[in-house]
């Protein structure tokens, strides 16, 4: 009866939520964005260092539920070296993944662990929060993004 829950909270998600990767403030970042989920109090800050069109370094800080934290952590792992265009394509695929459970493309890699999120509509925004912050950072928006 906890099957759906094991889908949602896969071991990799729990691992990343407990020991998030790239969890630091980045000195010398040239892009930054805040993401907030006012409903549950999740808040993250994403730092990027971009050279031209390419994400050279990426990190985050913040607090939140296991899903949003793991999503931010796995996102930072997945994006180093990607171009702006690749980032946007990946965003679309992750968005489809967490809303439909279908892995829309073959770029998602490890991020496929978030497929279980689609069965929990209230939690989709937790998974997608860091991604919204990412797009805001890449587009150089300064206002905090919100999933509400």
């Amino acid at each position: 009866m906890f099957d759906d829950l094991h889908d949602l909270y896969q071991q990799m998600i729990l691992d990343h939520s407990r020991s998030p990767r790239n969890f630091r403030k980045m000195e010398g970042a040239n892009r930054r964005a805040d993401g907030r989920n006012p409903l549950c109090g999740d808040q993250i800050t994403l730092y990027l260092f971009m050279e031209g069109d390419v994400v050279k370094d990426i990190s985050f800080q913040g607090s939140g539920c296991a899903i949003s934290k793991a999503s931010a952590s796995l996102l930072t792992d997945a994006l180093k070296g990607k171009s702006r265009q690749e980032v946007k394509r990946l965003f679309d695929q992750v968005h489809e993944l967490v809303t439909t459970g279908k892995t829309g493309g073959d770029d998602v890699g490890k991020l496929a662990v978030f497929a279980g999120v689609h069965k929990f509509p209230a939690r989709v925004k937790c998974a997608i929060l860091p991604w919204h912050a990412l797009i805001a950072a890449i587009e150089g928006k300064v206002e905090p993004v919100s999933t509400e």
Partner: protein
Amino acid sequence: MSLASPIQEPKKSAIDWRSLRDDFPALHQIVHGHPLIYFDNAATTQKPRFVIEALRSFYERDNANVHRGVHELSNRASAAYEAARARAAQFIRAKSADEIVFTRGTTEAINLVAQSWGPKNLRPGDRILLTEMEHHSNIVPWQLLAERVGAQLIFLPISDDKGLLDLNRLDEWLTPQVKILAITHISNSLGTVNPVAELCRRARRIGAVTLIDAAQSAGHCPLDVQEIGCDFLAFSGHKMCGPTGIGVLYGRHELLEAMPPYQGGGDMISTVDFHRSTWNRVPHKFEAGTPHISGAVGLHAAMDYLDRIGRKNIAQRDHELAAYAYERLSRLSGLRLFGPHVGRAGLVSFLAADVHAHDLVTVADQRGIALRGGHHCNQPLMKQLGVEATARASFYFYNLEEEIDRFVDALREIQKFFSR
């Protein structure tokens, strides 16, 4: 709030609480393969058949618009609507039905006072005294007002995790600049029951007007506005077995009389010219447009239903359930409990170490347990407590000890699940 009463408190088992569950159709369902345990009553309560039937009967027999019609159905609808107002006055012991304004709920009632009473009575530099445990609905309307008139918001501090107001320091806050004290009766995230009569008495001494947010108390304990001594009191129907979209603002008659209208439209006027209008009498002056007639009828039924059980009995049942839950939860390791140890209202707010409230609530839901996780519309309070969010189980008289047992078992499993 004790009027010395010769009547003994009812014994623990005086009421068959379990059989009352049969009055609530929504309680009897399977959620994610488990019998529903509804512990989100501070957000909204379930509705008894008695209230649902009152709504249905109104729409099937008496439905018409109020106050303007001459025909039979309009007369019936008007009578039902005004009977609900009289019942609400009786429910909180207001002196007259004219002191009852129907609103969409507590939030609109507070906004009405802030927007109508506020600008006429506040000057730049005046202070609005709130507490740190207020719901957003008793903060934001005052922020809007303060900005508009140049007044200042100040907040009575709470002690610590126990969530009690520090009354010894009240005089430091109750200065002559304070023109209104707006305070919650029962905290929706801590379960604190504030000594509202004492607070109103102290506020009155310095000439401040008082408003009580009774959203969490109206359906849970007897309310007597004369004994509390407040100028305004607000509550919502849906948190006390009534429909959503209907609530009450109580205001002392002379205050309501002196206040300008809140919204303009039909029903609130006496005469209308192209360029000028005169206002209807209180309370109709504050009810523009077709009101929520069926809502008032449903609220009437809810008040009757609650008083048949007895609000004193309900208050005692709340205490029993909260005390039982608190006792069971305090024996779990890795749990932080918020709010007072004793004398708490019917809810428990908590955090499990290493499990975010939102994750906990998701897993509990898979066990058919409806909890709430988040800031409970208390963001400043959460900041004050140094947490992002808490999980909350809030009870009503139809909840059972065995449901609390199942909830505690589920919590243990949840802790295990997240430590794997």
